[in-house]
């Protein structure tokens, strides 16, 4: 689905942020010097307490906010040289609250809005809309008014409306808030599929269980800067830094830590893995 995938070669950094600072009107210093690189096809989680600068960072990347100083390169081009609409072709941003963008009288219309604004030719537009609706499992409700749908469906419509613009990079801001277990698993499965298509996924979240389960790289933010940047197991092993950033590892990781005296390794990320390790230890004991 991504036309330029082959043309894109040597430098595989899709996002490159250097010394990014941003201050809101009124003097709140939201970003105090962010440095990070994200490569093509990565699945990155950005975590941090409320007010740590996650959303501000994302809004800078998509051009809604302009940096006070520092640079952001998206696919090698500085964001300050590009319009928001031009950036939207490359980076899609699914906002936290779906109700802040749904306004059409049918789901299909809603999903078509973005690519229509970007001037996609009719054939490609239809293909992208179809793909987005399938990815977010919306074909059943495609003629219904988005406002009449459940929260989970509304969120999927808002995500589909971003996917339909065919961006290589997708940023999801707290996509599972307010969803039940089943709904959030289905949504995360859909996002996983987008990643296996070769798209870069950036997940902004508080939910450490989500991070342990899906992310392959975790960036921890605190007070407007990146404080940890590693794979999930690496990040969870730095308990002090996590606590300072107002975060706690998921329960299964904490349990594994408690059991480390019993020989359980500290890089366990899922209940299944913990059970497997415990069974191995018991097997050795017998």
């Amino acid at each position, binding site marked *: 689905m991504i036309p330029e995938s082959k043309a894109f070669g040597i430098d595989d950094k899709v996002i490159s942020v250097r010394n990014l600072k941003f201050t809101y009107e009124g003097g709140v210093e939201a970003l105090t010097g962010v440095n990070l690189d994200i490569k093509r096809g990565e699945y990155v989680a950005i975590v941090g307490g409320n007010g740590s600068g996650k959303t501000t960072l994302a809004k800078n990347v998509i051009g*809604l906010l302009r940096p006070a100083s520092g640079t952001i390169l998206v696919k090698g081009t500085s964001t300050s040289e590009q319009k928001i609409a031009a950036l939207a072709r490359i980076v*899609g941003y699914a906002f936290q609250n779906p109700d*802040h*963008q749904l*306004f059409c009288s049918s789901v299909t219309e809603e999903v078509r809005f973005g690519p229509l*604004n970007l001037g996609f030719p009719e054939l490609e537009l239809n293909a992208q809309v179809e793909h987005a609706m399938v990815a977010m499992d919306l074909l059943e409700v495609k003629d219904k008014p988005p406002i009449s749908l459940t929260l989970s469906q509304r969120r999927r419509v808002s995500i589909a409306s971003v996917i339909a613009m065919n961006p290589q990079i997708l940023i999801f801001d707290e996509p599972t808030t307010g969803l039940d277990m089943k709904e959030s698993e289905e949504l995360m499965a859909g996002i996983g599929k987008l990643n296996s298509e070769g798209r870069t996924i950036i997940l902004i979240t508080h939910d450490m269980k989500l991070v342990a389960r899906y992310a392959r790289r975790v960036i921890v933010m605190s007070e407007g800067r990146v404080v940890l940047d590693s794979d999930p197991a690496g990040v969870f092993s730095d308990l002090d830094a996590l606590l300072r950033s107002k975060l706690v590892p998921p329960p299964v990781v904490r349990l594994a830590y408690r059991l480390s005296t019993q020989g359980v390794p500290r890089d366990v990320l899922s209940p299944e893995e913990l059970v497997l390790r415990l069974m191995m230890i018991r097997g050795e004991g017998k």
Partner: protein
Amino acid sequence: MTGFVDFYTEADTFLHRMDPRVKIVAVLLLSLLAFILTNLLYLLVLLAFIMLLVYLSRATFSRTMFALKFVLRLMVLIVVLWPLFDRSGTPVLASLGPISISEPAIWRGIASAVRVGCLASVWYILMFTTSQRDLVRALVKLGLRFDFGLALSISLRFFPTFLATIESITDAQRARGLDLERRGLIKRSRNYVAVLVPAVVSALKTADTLSLALESRAYGARPDRTYLRQIRMRPSDYVAFAGVVAMLAIPAVARFVFLVDI
């Protein structure tokens, strides 16, 4: 952004301590006074008096300037335009075709500008020194139905929230490639539909939740209401009230009873 919605500045001056009812009535009486006075000199004295009160309200300099800039623009506009429409009186200073400018018209223009300056800036005294809560409470005490008072304070309270929602909706739609700077009125207003529909939906949802929250706290269970904080007239309030009444009464009697031109 909230600065432009709520002008109130926290401070402890005699104006802040004054009973809000007295303040509302005083502002109305001073406005009336501006209508009674026709003499430029007296109007200037009134304007100076109002400006002194604005100064004493201890609003921040930048906020006062923001407020006065608006008044000043209005005054300049009146001074410039008045003589073009009011063509009575002699001597005529200049005339060009149908347009003639007379000297008395220029003076009348200046006087009207000062009057409008008084009318506009006298409200800043009230706005700078009275919190929205006190204002609504005073209006209810003066006879406004409590429901209307509540509706008024809720709308004042939610106005900044509503602006923030609109901003976030605009962000979301711009990230979907919506260009709000596009030229052409029809195209642009069509683009704003994408912002207005979610904004209205979200306002209705907020109103719905709010009414539930009110009812769950037994709103309207009794027709009369008590208040945690009572506003009460103190001796100084009576003095201030009497002072303002005298300020209006003396020129009014002079003009309408003794027919003195003031």
